């Protein structure tokens, strides 16, 4: 068996690394048309011509400077792990920007192969890249590929296999003779970028000292450059006294000189550079307009919820019929088998009602994720961060912090993890604290059910208002945290606005299918078990099995918190039980209600009428329902989110703060809504 070749895929955010990784490994990792999707490295394996390859997909970075968590992770992997070949995935349609990282990687001295991705877009724009001159100037193999169309994949791995032992300096460089410096050590034969004489002198002298102290070093030139840039990590690791050589940070000079070389490369290798993305610019003039950008975003989100409700509800009918049939069949079947009444109640009123009740909302969830997938893959999501930057900076946050918040519309767990893209730890913490206020998809069944039950004419508007309340509360909390925080910070948003493109069917399919699969898995595990537990605590009390649920353990537990929630219009033990159960997973609020009232098909017209009648009998009105939705939106996040907050903050204290903050705010806002509503109605 031949030795496995370890290949690391690295590149700027949103250049198509994960799409390329998926194309090779057959994996279905999430890809999206906005930066920061990958925040952890991912591994996969495949064989090319009987040669085993291990591929590692690294988070997108713009440079090898260690500022963000992604940059730290990618850099440490490239530097310390057993990487045989680095594949620098480059968005060929933005060659100028992508080459900066490429130059840093080449300077590193490891074998690098340049994958020129998105060549199809380059052609569409009428540009051309001289793929003969480019490798001459960079000194590394350059392979045009299209990850989306799976073109050039074989030849890329062919190049990787052939160049695994060749460092960039093995190649002949072709620099412009006129630009050669008079530096005594002429590096034009071995270095991709040759800096000014002053810097080259310093690099040579630092390299000599490094080699004298650390004899095993192989990437001395790169380390010398990093020391000149005053890179904190490298300075900490290589503690040489260089005060006589490094009187200041040469980072700006080095960056500028790299860009001078990039300009040289672009002028020689890129033809028709000016004919770029006119369509994108025209669309951006509207979508990212400083006045209209924000209303357009809220308009688009309103459209998403319009589709979620109207198209989702049309599809829901099929599920309701199926659930009715299944419930009746199981009931009849169990009776035929001679099963006891308790068991029939457990299965039909507990498990099927609880799990089935959640499954009927699958069409709404499906439509929501389909719409979000379209927005992500089209390239709109990055624009939202850009549009929100003005507002976010007023809150003491960067517009980039809005990306985790947007992800929160899907699920809070990946959203909180996405906050790793933020450089400042305080920004991260703030973002982690406010992200759970964004309404995740697990809360959707609660809105759909209660808005359709109590506000049948305006169900969509009522549900949409929940999403708006979530955003407004997140903004207000961020503002409050800004005033509490002492440090005044200036935030600059540096975010890539990717090209608009027609969403890719495979990407959309993977995204939606994974969400649907997870929803089904969750229904079959967490909600299944929760439904049984709820059935048990509602049917058993201190005296054994009870006929009247108000004597059950559940009722006893619920009644304890009733006085606390009464000001918010939620002083009903049934509601309290549902809310407590919802901490495990928010959908359980709905399944608890179905088990509580023994309604087999809660989202059907009959099911909803029964529920409205039962709740109405105890004085639960539309105002109470609205207050319940607000409370469900804002109160303690689900168990998985709590665990994620703990993991990401690495602090029980901050996890406790997040829980307490949400509980207090949920209670406060719900009470405000209920009390003001009571005065008006």
């Amino acid at each position: 068996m031949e030795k496995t070749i370890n290949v690391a895929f690295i590149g700027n955010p949103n250049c198509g690394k994960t799409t390329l990784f998926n194309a090779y490994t057959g994996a279905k990792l999430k890809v999206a048309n906005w930066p920061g999707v990958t925040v952890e490295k991912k591994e996969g394996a495949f064989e090319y011509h009987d040669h085993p390859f291990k591929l590692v997909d690294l988070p997108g970075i713009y440079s090898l400077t260690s500022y963000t968590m992604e940059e730290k992770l990618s850099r440490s992997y490239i530097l310390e792990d057993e990487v045989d070949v680095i594949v620098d995935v480059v968005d060929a349609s933005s060659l100028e920007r992508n080459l900066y990282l490429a130059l840093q990687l080449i300077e590193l001295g490891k074998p690098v192969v340049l994958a020129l991705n998105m060549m199809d877009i380059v052609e569409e724009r009428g540009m051309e890249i001289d793929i003969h001159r480019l490798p001459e100037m960079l000194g590394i193999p350059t392979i045009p590929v299209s990850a989306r169309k799976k073109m050039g994949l074989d030849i890329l791995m062919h190049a990787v296999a052939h160049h695994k032992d060749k460092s960039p300096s093995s190649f002949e460089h072709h620099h412009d003779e006129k630009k050669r410096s008079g530096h005594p050590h002429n590096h034009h034969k071995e270095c991709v970028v040759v800096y000014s004489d002053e810097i080259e002198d310093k690099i040579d002298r630092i390299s000599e000292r490094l080699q004298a102290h650390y004899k095993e070093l192989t990437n001395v030139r790169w380390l010398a450059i990093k020391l000149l840039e005053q890179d904190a990590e490298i300075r900490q690791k290589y503690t040489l006294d260089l005060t006589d050589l490094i009187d200041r940070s040469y980072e700006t000079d080095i960056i500028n000189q790299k860009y001078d070389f990039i300009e040289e490369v672009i002028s020689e290798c890129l033809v028709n550079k000016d004919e770029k993305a006119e369509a994108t610019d025209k669309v951006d003039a509207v979508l990212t307009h400083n006045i209209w950008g924000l209303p357009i975003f809220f308009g688009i989100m309103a459209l998403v919820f319009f589709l979620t409700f109207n198209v989702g509800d049309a599809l829901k009918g099929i599920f309701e019929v199926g659930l009715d049939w299944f419930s009746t069949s199981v009931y009849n079947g169990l009776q035929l088998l001679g099963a006891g009444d308790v068991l029939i109640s457990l299965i039909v009123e507990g498990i099927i009602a609880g799990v089935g009740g959640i499954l009927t909302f699958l069409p709404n969830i499906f439509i929501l994720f389909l719409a979000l997938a379209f927005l992500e893959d089209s390239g709109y999501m990055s624009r939202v961060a850009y549009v929100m930057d003005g507002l976010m900076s007023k809150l003491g946050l960067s517009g980039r912090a809005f990306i985790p918040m947007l992800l929160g519309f899907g699920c809070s767990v990946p959203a909180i993890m996405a906050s790793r893209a933020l450089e400042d730890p305080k920004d991260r913490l703030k973002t982690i604290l406010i992200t759970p206020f964004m309404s995740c998809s697990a809360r959707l069944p609660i809105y759909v059910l209660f808005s359709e039950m109590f506000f049948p004419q305006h169900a969509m508007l009522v549900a949409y208002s929940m999403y708006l309340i979530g955003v407004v509360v997140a903004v207000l909390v961020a503002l409050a945290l800004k005033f509490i925080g002492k440090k005044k910070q200036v935030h600059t948003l540096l975010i890539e606005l990717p090209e608009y493109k027609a969403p890719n069917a495979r990407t959309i399919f993977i995204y939606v299918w994974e969400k649907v699969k997870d929803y089904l898995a969750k229904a079959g595990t967490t909600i299944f078990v929760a439904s049984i537990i709820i059935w048990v605590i509602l049917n058993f009390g201190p005296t054994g099995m009870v006929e009247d649920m108000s004597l059950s353990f559940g009722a006893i537990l619920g009644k304890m918190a009733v006085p606390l929630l009464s000001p918010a219009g939620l002083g009903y033990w049934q509601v309290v039980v549902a809310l407590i159960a919802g901490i495990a997973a928010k959908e359980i609020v709905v399944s608890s209600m179905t088990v509580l009232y023994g309604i087999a098909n809660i989202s059907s017209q009959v099911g909803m009428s029964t529920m409205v009648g039962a709740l109405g009998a105890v004085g639960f009105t539309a105002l109470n329902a609205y207050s319940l939705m607000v409370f469900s939106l804002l109160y303690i996040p689900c168990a998985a989110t709590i665990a994620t907050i703990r993991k990401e903050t690495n602090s029980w204290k901050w996890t406790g703060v997040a829980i307490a903050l949400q509980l207090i705010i949920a209670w406060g806002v719900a009470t405000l809504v209920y009390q003001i509503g009571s005065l008006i109605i």
Partner: protein
Amino acid sequence: MVSVIILGVILLYVLFVIYKKVKGMKEGKFCSCGCESCPAQKKCKN
């Protein structure tokens, strides 16, 4: 008898789900909230 068998199957499944969840939690694989496409899914699921 039928009731006992069905109840037994349900109980076994519940115990299995709880066992898997607890085991996952202990290993730090707590992500069970419908995030197959989560950026950290490899760490959580594998």
